[in-house]
């Protein structure tokens, strides 16, 4: 038994090393030429935002982003539907409550919420964006949950409200993605784009999309953590 285990371990290590060697030798990385600077400057001037990643996500490749949000919704829906009915184990120990954590949460939560809002609102001007902002907001709520206990939080925010936020923000994303284009140009183009790159009011629908995506990601991530805290598995 020992020998077989040793042999398997050796075979596994050899396979891993062999894979690394083969992959690194045959990998054919695209060369230095990224999107050429003229193209990037053109994107920046057309959309009017200075954060090129946001410009690409929410204007040039908006179609992909819509589907990514869709996949995210499906996963959150799955988590919710599997954990909704379970009451969790009969004897549930409370999450660790300590005074230090509680007071630290009172101090930290406003800062975290502010950071999340900043990332979402200024996502097209500075590094950030809707995805990061939503994730940070969910982390802030998680901090409050650890400090106050999930029952307190759940009694203050009904679960239905979160579902509404999620659904409405998804609809909002679709609306902002499709409607301006349907009204003034091609679908999914950003006809209101333009403006001074680096300013807050630039990019047409992009800031609104950032905000809505932040809401969506926050609602989804919070739904996941809320259901996990309620269920409190036994793994």
């Amino acid at each position, binding site marked *: 038994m020992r020998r077989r285990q040793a042999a398997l371990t050796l075979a596994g290590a050899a396979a891993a090393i062999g894979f690394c060697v083969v992959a690194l030798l045959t990998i054919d990385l695209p060369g230095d030429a990224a999107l050429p600077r003229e193209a990037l400057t053109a994107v920046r001037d057309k959309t009017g935002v200075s*954060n090129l*990643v*946001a410009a690409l996500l929410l204007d040039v490749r908006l179609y992909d982003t819509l589907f990514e949000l869709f996949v995210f919704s499906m996963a959150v829906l799955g988590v919710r539907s599997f954990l909704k009915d379970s009451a969790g*184990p*009969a*004897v549930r*120990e409370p999450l660790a409550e300590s005074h230090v954590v509680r007071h630290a949460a009172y101090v930290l939560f406003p800062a975290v919420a502010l950071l999340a809002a900043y*990332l979402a609102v200024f996502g097209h001007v500075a*590094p*950030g*964006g809707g*995805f*990061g902002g939503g*994730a*940070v907001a*969910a*982390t802030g709520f*998680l901090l409050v949950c650890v400090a106050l206990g999930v029952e307190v939080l759940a009694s203050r925010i009904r679960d239905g409200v979160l579902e509404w936020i999620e659904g409405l923000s998804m609809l909002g994303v679709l609306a902002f993605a499709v409607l301006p284009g349907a009204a003034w140009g091609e679908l999914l183009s950003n006809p209101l784009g333009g403006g001074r790159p680096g300013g807050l009011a630039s990019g047409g629908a992009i800031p609104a999309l950032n905000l809505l995506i932040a809401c969506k990601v926050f609602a989804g*991530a919070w739904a*996941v*953590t809320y259901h*996990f*805290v309620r*269920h*409190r*598995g*036994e*793994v």
Partner: protein
Amino acid sequence: MSAVVVLAALPVICAYALFQRRRWVAVLGMGMASFLLAVVYVLQGAPDVAVAEAAIGAALVTFIYVLAIRRTGRLVVIAAEVPGLLHRRGREVDGVEFEILQGFATKLGLDLTVRFATFDDAMEALRGGSADILAGGFVPQTGEPALVTRGFLDTRFYVVGAGEPCEAPRFRDELRALLRRVEAGDVPVTIDLARLLALMRRGVEAANVAATDAVGHYAFGVCRRRPDLHARLERHLEEIEATGALERIVERYLA
């Protein structure tokens, strides 16, 4: 340049975290790896990605794992305190049953947690599923609402006090209550060996004690919902009996 240093640390941390024995160490290692990845992304000029990775990988993922593996490998033993078999010694727990269960828990890779309660509360907890194993001088009778393992130690029943032995053996009583009854000269009580030894250490005279012919054995009770645990505990008891380790343990405490 410093990106290289951080990147070099990553495979080491991941290898340590993935090929671990303890689950929570793996989860924490993954959280740390996510955080280091976020640092690398910042150093390589991808700040948006870094924010998302830090918030999600380091915080949210670790948190849901910690929630999911909360009862991280614990074996909960609920017991009545019986000196010699399972008793407290300062802040530690000691005794024959403790050593047996500790060996069992180590073999399974779990942490042993012992809680003391009265016998009825203990049985309630076992039935409800909040405890895994019932211990503490448990002499099983027919119709117990739990899975019962094989006996690991035989005992004879003794009668303390003069008079006719009462019908139901009184060995489930708490030790202090038992002592009070004996001192008050109450109805003669029938008890098992471990409790007898405990009583004698507290001053009950040997003259009052008579051995009966009834015998029984100490065993463990296992929660009904854990037949796998029951099977493994039985196997563990067989093993330690076969190797003679059980005898050594018993000698150490109940010589």
